[in-house]
């Protein structure tokens, strides 16, 4: 997989990771890695600008907690974020089906 293939999908992927439960930045990147079987192994630092962008646009909320004496920022989906994720899923399925029909090897 190339970085270009991930362009435009990071926000949707992060929203999907946050759907089951709130996560902090490092948790999101580790979850991405685990859920993709290690295929999506992004540099950890790249997730923070994405999370801040999602927070600014109202798709996630952030709250500070304290973990082992350190401040930790935990992100959770908002109602708007859940709606956006549902839209992203529908668009992705349509897109993936279309591409699959075109690029699949002839039987």
């Amino acid at each position, binding site marked *: *997989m*190339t*970085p270009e*293939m*991930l362009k435009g999908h990071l926000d949707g992927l992060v929203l999907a990771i946050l759907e089951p439960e709130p996560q*902090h*930045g*490092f948790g999101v990147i*580790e979850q991405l890695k685990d859920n993709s079987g*290690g*295929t*999506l*192994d*992004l*540099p*950890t*630092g*790249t997730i*923070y*600008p994405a999370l*801040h*962008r999602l927070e*600014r*646009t*109202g798709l996630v909320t952030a709250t500070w907690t304290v*973990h082992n004496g*350190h*401040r*930790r*920022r935990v992100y959770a989906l908002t109602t708007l974020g859940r709606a956006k994720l549902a839209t992203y899923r529908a668009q992705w399925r349509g897109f993936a089906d279309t591409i699959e029909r075109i690029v699949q090897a002839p039987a």
Partner: protein
Amino acid sequence: MSEGSSRVNRQACPAERSGEGPSSGPDAIERYLEQVGRQLPGGPRVRRDILDELRDGLTQTLEHHGDDTAETALRREFGDPQQIGVALAGEARLRLARRHAVIVLLLLLAGGLGWQAYQSVVGIADSTVPTGWARSVFLAAVEALQACAMLAQIGAVLTVLTVSLPGRWAAEWAARITLVALAGFALAVASMLVSIAPAHRLDAVLVSIPVAGLTLPAIRYAYFATRHLRLR
């Protein structure tokens, strides 16, 4: 899948900077944060929040991947600090621009309410309108003042609303309009002070003190908002 092909967007790991040598985990984290911090805009709370969040992530990164020297492990696993700093700075600037536009809006609303209160309690005498050449200047300044106040409010609202839109050119223009309208407002107030009927000049000067107390900070914050949007 091989290690090389399985990694997406992984940064090339630069060699440790010459002369620095291997560093302990906390030292490497603080050095990394210092490089990120150089890219971040002012605003102590925004900076502290961003760096605290990264410190937590960097600490966990070292705990999970600290098999190499700390500096190398951080750069390999977390990414290039300058690139991350630039990306976070862009986000921080958008937040600051929105915050400053909200402050401008609140100052304008406070000014508007204060003016309404002044009009209802003290009132504006007809004799404030001067005669002769000053009359047209005074009346034009009153018109300009009202128009600029309205334009500045619209600009500030639009800045807040459009700062999250893709491209952000609308927010940048809205912030510029706010700044220009506020400068026009200040100029109109000054013109009114100069042209008001001499008998009311002292009253006008006294009224202009709280007006300036609201207008000058509003201009300052509108300038900051414009600057953050331009530099994002």
